[in-house]
C-alpha cells in the first residue's frame, strides 16, 4: 500500500512517515503542498493520502476537493492531520469528503487506529 504524506512542514512529514514505517507501511511518497500532491497523483498510483490543512499554494481542503472531483480518485482514502480542532473545521473537512480527521499533536496509536478504521470501511 502506497501512502502520500502531504505537509509543508518537513518535521511533520518525517514524524508521519516514521510513524507509518513503525506501523509497517514502507511505500511512502511525500509532497510539500496540495499542488505537489496533485502532480504526484497524476504520475503514480497512490492508495492512501494523509494531508495537512494549512499549506501554501494549495491547502489540504482544496486538495481534498480536487481529488474528489476526479472520477478515478473519488474513493481514494484521505486522512487529514491538522492543528485545526474547532468544530467548524471538522465540519468543513467532512463536507470536503475527507475520510477521517486527526487533531495535532497526535499519538502514534491514533494514526494507526484511524488508518485501520478507514481501510475497514473502504
Amino acid at each position: 500500500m502506497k501512502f502520500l504524506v502531504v505537509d509543508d512542514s518537513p518535521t511533520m512529514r518525517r514524524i508521519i512517515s516514521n510513524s507509518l514505517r513503525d506501523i509497517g507501511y514502507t511505500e511512502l511518497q511525500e509532497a510539500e503542498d496540495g499542488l505537489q500532491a496533485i502532480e504526484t497523483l497524476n504520475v503514480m498510483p497512490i492508495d492512501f493520502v494523509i494531508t495537512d490543512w494549512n499549506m501554501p499554494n494549495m491547502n489540504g481542503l482544496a486538495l481534498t476537493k480536487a481529488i474528489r472531483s476526479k472520477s478515478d480518485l473519488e474513493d481514494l482514502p484521505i486522512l487529514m492531520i491538522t492543528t485545526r480542532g474547532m468544530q467548524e473545521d471538522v465540519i468543513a473537512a467532512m463536507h470536503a469528503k475527507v475520510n477521517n480527521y486527526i487533531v495535532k499533536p497526535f499519538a502514534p496509536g491514533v494514526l494507526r487506529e484511524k488508518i485501520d478504521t478507514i481501510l475497514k470501511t473502504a
Partner: protein
Amino acid sequence: MSSLNVNDILGKLNELRAVFVLGQRALPFIEEVFAFLSEVAPLMEEINASMMDSALLVPHATSQLQSISEATKTASAEILDLIDDVMVQSAQYEGELDRALHDVKRIEALGVDTLRILREAIPDRSDVLALVEQNVENGALHVHNLESSIHARRTVIGEIREQMNQIAMSLQVQDCTAQQIASVTHLLDNMRTRMAELLERLDKQSTPTDYTPDYDVPENASFNPDARYENADEKQQAADALIAAMQKGTHDETDAGVDRIFKNAALAMELRRPNDGDDE
C-alpha cells in the same frame, strides 16, 4: 447729514465695538490655542520620529522571529536524525542479542546432546556420566541466567525505542510554534506596511520602501493562528463524535447540535481524567 445716516453710523460703531469686545474676550483663548499648537508641534514630531524608529524595528523583529522558526526547524531535523540513528543502532543491537540468544541455546542443546551420546556410549560409567550431567545442569543454569539477561536488555531497548518515538512525536511542537510565529510575522508585516504608508503621508521625504524588510515575507503563507501544542485528546474525541454522527447521518449541524457534541466530549474527558486527590 440726515439723522437716519447718523443712526446708521452709530449702529455700525456699536457692531464694531461688539467685535472688539468679542476679540478682547477671545484673545486669551486664541493665545491658549497658539500655546497648545506650539506644544503639539514638537510632540507630533516626536510621534513621527518614534513611529519611524518603530517602523524600522518591525522588520528586525520579524527577521528575528523567522530565524527562530528556522532554528527550531533545523534543531528538530537534527533531533530526528539522532533518533533515526538510535533506532538503527538499537535494531542492530537487538539483532546481535537475538543471535547471542540463539548461540547460547545451541550451546545448551550441544551439552544435552553430548550427555545423551555418552549415556549410549558408556552406560556403565555412572561416575563420568554423573560428572557430565552435573556440568550440563550447571551450564543450563548459566544459559538460563544469560537468557534472562538478554531478555532484560531487549526490554530496555524496547523502552528506549518507545521513548525515542515519544521524543519524535513531541517534535510536533515545532509545527505548532512555526504556525504561531508565522501568524505573528504576518501581523507584524501588516503593521509595518501600514506604518510605512502613514509615515509617507506624515513625512513626504520618506517612502514605504525605506522600511522594506531585507527578508522575504511569503505572500501565500498558510498558517493556523490558533495552533497550540497542548493535549489534543479532548478535541480529538469531539472531532470523532462529530464525524461519527455525520457519517451516520444523525448529526444536528445547527450550532446548538454541534456544541452539544463538543460539550459531551469535554465532559467525557473530564470524567475519564483521574481525580488529583486520589493520587495523594
